[in-house]
């Protein structure tokens, strides 16, 4: 079988996209260290490392959930609002009472799961485009929050604030929780039928259906899990603020999470990618933020740089990707006539023009 592999394809096929993302992460760390060193500072001080990990946990929760949804060729634009709602629910349920922590966590995650279920059902049963469906859900939540709450609501007991504030060595507890959940998500995708079927539905839902997969199930599951992860992110925010705060939806978390997922090598149209890459994507974005902070770069310039990097990365992955549909190539190498035994001749020069052109 003749396989024409360009150099970049060869590299990506040896490393896999995930390998490529980790390579990019290493590159980003290296370049950042050099830049910071040029300013006479050091990137990997304890303070910077803690900052980097702290940034990564919140985005990590959201991006892990988003990965599942995107793998199914869906999208969730409501995660920022779900996180905001979750801070309020956690604050009000716990009401500063340490004995109500478990109840608060349960109520928050349960509500988030219900929202995810609603998203999934609207998308699969009513066949509403995921973009619109989840945007709608988000706006409903926003409207509710804006009318019902002005300013902080409820309070988080000190015991639960340790989730957001304490750390072991340079590792914040929240980052460790995020990494544990990432490992669980990786196992889920690689070891459960539903995980397998998420890839199948995202890759080609018709193929999945013809193979006996019910295409709705993985999509709904992904949306529920994504919302629950947004709930976890909300819990983290609440524990950091010590109270419920509705205004966190202004931070554009949903788009940042999508950027991290895509940066991590998951194909926006589904069927390809994984949580391992997403984690690297999260760390790349967190590293950039930390570096920009250390260097004191103007926040607007920061956004310009971040946007450019996301676009450049995705363009790079796209280059190394072979067309997803199996195109049947009849004459791959230039179409030597079938009876000819020798090596294929160069294509015949078709027009006398080729020699006759005046120079």
């Amino acid at each position, binding site marked *: 079988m*003749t396989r024409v592999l360009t150099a970049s394809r060869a590299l990506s096929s040896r490393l896999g996209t995930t390998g490529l993302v980790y390579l990019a992460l290493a590159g980003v760390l290296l370049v950042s260290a050099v830049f910071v060193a040029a300013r006479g500072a050091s990137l990997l001080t304890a303070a910077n490392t803690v900052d980097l990990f702290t940034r990564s946990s919140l985005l990590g929760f959201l991006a892990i959930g988003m990965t599942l949804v995107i793998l199914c060729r869906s999208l969730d634009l409501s995660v920022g609002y779900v996180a905001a709602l979750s801070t309020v629910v956690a604050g009000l349920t716990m009401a500063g009472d340490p004995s109500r922590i478990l109840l608060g966590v349960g109520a928050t995650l349960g509500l988030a799961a219900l929202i995810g279920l609603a998203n999934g059902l609207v998308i699969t049963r009513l066949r509403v485009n995921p973009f619109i469906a989840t945007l709608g859900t988000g706006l409903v939540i926003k409207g509710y929050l804006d009318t019902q709450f002005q300013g902080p609501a409820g309070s988080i007991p000190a015991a639960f604030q340790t989730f957001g504030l304490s750390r072991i060595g340079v590792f914040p507890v929240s980052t460790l929780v995020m990494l544990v959940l990432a490992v669980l998500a990786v196992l889920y995708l690689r070891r459960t039928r539903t995980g397998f079927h998420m890839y199948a539905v995202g890759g080609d839902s018709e*193929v999945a259906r013809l193979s006996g*997969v019910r295409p709705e199930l993985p999509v709904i599951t992904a949306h529920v899990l994504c919302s629950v992860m947004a709930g976890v992110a909300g819990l983290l925010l609440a524990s950091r603020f010590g109270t419920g705060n509705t205004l966190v939806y202004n931070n554009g978390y949903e788009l940042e999470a999508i950027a991290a997922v895509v940066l991590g090598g998951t194909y926006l149209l589904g069927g390809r990618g994984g949580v391992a890459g997403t984690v690297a994507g999260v760390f790349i974005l967190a590293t950039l933020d930390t570096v920009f902070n250390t260097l004191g770069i103007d926040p607007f310039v920061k956004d310009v740089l971040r946007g450019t990097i996301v676009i450049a990365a995705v363009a790079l992955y796209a280059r190394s990707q072979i067309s*997803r549909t199996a195109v049947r190539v*009849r004459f791959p190498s230039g*179409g030597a006539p079938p009876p000819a035994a020798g090596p294929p001749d160069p294509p015949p020069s078709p027009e006398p023009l080729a020699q006759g052109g005046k120079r």
Partner: protein
Amino acid sequence: MSTHPLLRMTGVSKSFLGVRVLHGVDLELRAGELHALVGENGAGKSTLMKVLAGVHRADSGRIELAGREVSFEHPVQAQRAGVATVFQEFNLLPERTVAQNVFLGREPRRRGLVDERAMERDTARLLDDLGLEGIEPRSKVRSLSVAEQQVVEIVKALSHDARVISMDEPTAALADHEVELLYRIIGRLRERGVGILYVSHRLREIFDLADTITVLKDGHLVDTGPASGTRPADLVRKMVGRPVSAVFPERLEPRGEHVGEVRLSVSGGGNAQLDGIDLQVRGGEIVGLAGLQGSGRTEIAHALFGIDRFTRGGVSVDGLRADPRSPRQAVRAGLALVTEDRKAQGLSLNQSILANSRLVLDAVLPSGSGRRARRIPGILSALELVARGGHHQEVRYLSGGNQQKVVLAKWLATDPGVMVLDEPTRGIDVGAKQAVYTLIRELAASGVAILLISSELPELIGMADRLVVLGDGRVAGELPGGSSEEAVMALATGAPPDGAHESADEDSAGPHRHEEAAP
């Protein structure tokens, strides 16, 4: 010996939107037998397979599997019952591994988790059984060649313990050495007592492989018989010979200035789907491109128009080297393409007739588009376009025939020198067909070079001055206009020409006719 055949279909009929595509077809398949299904484009072969596979439901008729009546409402039901189908389009996920594809939807589990090791082991065993050690269960499907992907489809079918496997044009995309691999696999399957239903356009394969041949024509069963007693030429005769349903307008006296000049010339054209295409069309000439589905007809239209351009060879229009790299360049060079898929590629359905007619003018030839656009109402009325809402009506509300007239008007407004018409009469009524035929004749008479592509052989034969027959992406031969359908089919299927009967019976290798287009 069981008394029942493995599969028996009796009186299977099926209609789509009132059009009957299968008329009471009977078919029997025995264990270990390869039953070939042949017929022209649109004869109903694929529909019959889809009925068997549970993709479509038959309107009437019985399907019995080993003597028990079955009725499949979903492809998965058919698979569970042991009827597997390898369709023309791949049903694989390119981003997943071979094993993951084979066991999709039925992943084996151990303690609640997917047992990937068992999956890979079983896939490897199935591959080994077929004598295929070259394919790794862990490699991603997209990294496999087309032939290997086909093997994966077959392995997927086998993993269901399929007793009946139907294959729709399995060799359509395979190179010669890959076909041998398929032959070998088919041999193994038959040894195991699997019954194979095989659709192919290539008569050589049919005579290589088949025990029984069934000929379908226009949804009717024409003949069923053992392959050994059939001659290729007889088979071709049974496949063709539809009644001519339309009378074609007479040729007109050419009067345009470009009549007789070579307006379109392709030499040695080739890309991933085509090779060694040599083609010349003169002003005033109608050249028909004949060939079976997938033989490269539409691919030539697309290559000429810069959609999937020729990567080898060259295209000249009116003596100037054109080599269009995009439809825009093609239009500028004087080409027009009436696409096969009117609704998706030819029209902007929710825009008005007028807007659609101006589309190419405004987009590609903005200078002077106003002047040319003034002719559009004239062109539309000359085409006898009937629209209740006038020229501002959205085209989605028009009949197929009237929609096609809008597409034609769009291109006529650009004054093309070369017009490529891909299935211009598909899905339109008889009256509109006549209007299209008349228009083609008039265009030719005015000096336009016309390349006509059609699956309806009578139409091609009746309209074209010359027929270029394609097979497997190459020019299989050329015939004068008015040739018999049999002659065209013989070339297109690679059957030997009349008079060479004897060789087919004694020589299983069969003839493989390719007229090499010598540069």
